[in-house]
């Protein structure tokens, strides 16, 4: 018997697809969709990051890792990275603290709690762009509501250039105002899963309010807390609208976050290769931060 005959004799008749093939068939549309929207543009961006472009958006020459090397030696990138870290750290800290405080309050029983819960979530529903416009009015040196409030309280004698004084910090506060409701949403959900019996037992044991929070509440909120840490950190690092609309990186580059720097390199200066390289550096930074958060989460779970 020849090999061919053996094979043909032993081969099972095939009808339709195998389970694996069928599974692949099912996920194929998603894979194609993802490839079209993510993989392909990323590949193009990677290719661009290895080229030297002129301001007309034309490739001048293959530049290898030159754009990445330039980025690491660019004082503007270094300054922007520091500003981004300050911006992100402030946003995360304020978001978490505000989220915790408000969610603890909203977890209490009081009249009109449902309405307050709805109102509290509203800032998150406002787009970042609209938040920027809103805070332009709040911080304005000429007609700003914050200046008006401070003046009414007798704390200032004349309107102050709040953005010039507070720079990246006041922008971070605006973003945290926009973002904190998401934290409240997550934290409130966690708080409602804490069994009331545990609080009772803790009270019986004479635990103080702080002790009850630390030993009873916090363990239940840990996962929500870590999710918010990851989300707030990545979203703050990616944020551009607020800076773009409020200050365009000013005054004197003091609010020039890394995303603004990427935007400027790409769309204003037409240096597409450099902009792409900076995007990948930002991506690595975001992945690193996310990974750290998840490692912390995994360790705690063990």
């Amino acid at each position, binding site marked *: 018997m020849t090999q061919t005959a053996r094979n043909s004799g032993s081969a099972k008749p095939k009808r339709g697809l195998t*389970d694996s093939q*069928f599974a692949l*068939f*099912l996920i194929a549309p998603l894979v194609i969709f993802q490839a079209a929207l993510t993989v392909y543009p990323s590949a193009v961006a990677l290719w661009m990051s290895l080229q030297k472009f*002129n*301001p*007309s*958006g*034309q490739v001048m020459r293959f530049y290898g890792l030159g754009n990445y090397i330039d980025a690491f030696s660019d004082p*503007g990138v270094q300054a922007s990275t520091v500003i981004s870290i300050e911006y992100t750290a402030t946003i995360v800290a304020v978001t978490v603290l505000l989220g915790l405080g408000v969610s603890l309050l909203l977890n209490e029983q009081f009249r009109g709690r449902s309405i307050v819960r709805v109102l509290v979530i509203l800032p998150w529903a406002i787009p970042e762009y609209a938040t920027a416009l809103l805070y*332009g009015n709040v911080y*304005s*040196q*000429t*007609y700003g509501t914050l200046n008006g409030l401070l003046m009414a309280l007798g704390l200032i004698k*004349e309107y102050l*250039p709040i*953005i*010039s004084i507070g*720079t990246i910090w006041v922008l971070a506060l605006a973003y945290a105002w926009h973002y904190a409701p998401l934290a409240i949403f997550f934290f409130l959900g966690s708080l409602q899963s804490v069994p009331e019996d545990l609080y009772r037992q803790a009270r019986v044991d004479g635990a103080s309010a702080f002790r009850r929070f630390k030993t009873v509440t916090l363990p239940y909120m840990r996962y929500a807390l870590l999710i918010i840490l990851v989300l707030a950190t990545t979203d703050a690092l990616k944020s551009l609208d607020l800076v*773009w*609309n*409020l*200050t*365009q*990186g*000013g*005054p*004197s*580059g003091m*609010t020039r976050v890394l995303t603004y720097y990427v*935007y*400027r390199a*790409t*769309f*204003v*200066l*037409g240096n*597409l290769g450099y902009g792409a390289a900076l995007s990948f550096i930002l991506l690595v930074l975001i992945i690193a931060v996310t990974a750290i958060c998840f490692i912390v989460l995994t360790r705690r779970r063990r």
Partner: protein
Amino acid sequence: MSTQKKESEKKTKNTNVNVTRRQALSKMGAAAVGAAAIVVVGGVAYYLSTSQAPPSPPPTTTAAATTQAATTQAATQTGLTAGPPVYFNIWAYHPEIVAANMQIFNQEYGENCEVLQVPGDYYASLLTKFMTGAGSRMDMMYLHSDYMTRYYKAGWIQPVNDEEHCNEIRNDYGNKNLLEVLMMPDGNQCGWVYFNGTVPIQYNGKVLQKAGLADDTGHIKSSPKTWDDFVQMCRDLVKSKVVKYAYLPKWIQCGTCGINEIFDEYCISEGELQFDPKTQEPTLENDRVLHILENMRTLVAENLADPGVLALNEQDHITTFCAGKHAFTEVHDYDLVAFNDPAQSPDAGWYHWLPAQPGSKGWYPYMGALYCISSHEYMKRSNNEAKRLERLHQFYAWKDKNGNYVAGKQWIQSPPFLGQPYTQYYDDPATKEAWLKQTYDEGDMAVRRNAHLTAVVPPGYHGMVWYSNWHEYLMDILPKMVLGEVTPRDALTSLIDTANSLRKEYGGPEIWK
């Protein structure tokens, strides 16, 4: 027993049709593929049906049909046939005026052209469009001059040298300096002026009057002749305690209209053009430029200029000056309307231009934008389409088929009165009447006319594909310098080094050969 059981199971299987999850998904998948196929076929059919030229209207006696016949006749008269819409992409600035003009054009020529307002950041959208072809079609568009240079070099802008009436339009321009804006180093002209203006110093007469520097009508008594005079006047104002800061310079963060543009303003008023137009080498190493930088620093160091402006955007800058807390600023000339609008400013009616720009030359800088036509593989067009587009281009930038200035007149005679390149507009009684209604006085009108017709274009504008990089660098270094982080001398050295470095990196005039 076992035989009976098997038969029973067999019966059960026959009566109850069990569908596995896999079978269900298979059927759903097949249905989805079928639906997708229908959508694709339908889409192709729709595309084919709409991409053909519309049929001629049947002869009827209705008013609509009469109009259609008239417009078709208008299109035919010029030997052009109607076709798919030609698109004019605009940024968000008084789109209602653009749309009104488009309506007139469509009626006059039996056309179906459309205005598309680009959402978000205009140049980012344009770049994306040119790089990827994504989104709606783009035929005509606005461009600032420095972007035009870059886009033309990239092959995204079409020269207009061969347009009919090209020389007539050139000759019609009141300020021939504007032709410099349009010309590329290779001799091609890349567009027509959409609007042209200047950045003159404006003052609040009420504030000056309180300090005894303006007469009863709020007009300045003695206009500063030099920038040193100007700085001294700011000192006097602050000393008089009428205002905390005398000057709200337009030192904002804006790529096309911020501290970089104001530096150009200072330089041009002193006759300093920053770059040699032929070699594109910097000409900044001189005492004039150093003194300009020193004055900028002095204004902040002596608390004469409001440093808070460094964090403002363009609209906030205008609003801040409207509040009446400063004596001087500079903005694009059309913004005088905002200052003199009672709804926006408590001191409306008190704002005027300085009769002459300070500086040894007193020249005004050109600022403005152009109408350009795209040229790209994504925007291929037939000869018929190209001619229709040319007609649209000239309608907006010059005259209609009857020889009337239409679009430009709308701009210059409606608030905020965008400047136009034709002298006729300024001499038109209708323009005068419209301007006087908006609290312009005769003196301001004369200043504006003079400024428009004599504005000087920085030679650095032409053919420097890296001009945006230069302007962005000005936005980096100048705020640091005015805040005292860098000395004027170091800032000047840095400016020269950067100019040389950009020229070396991206090329000088040789890239156009």
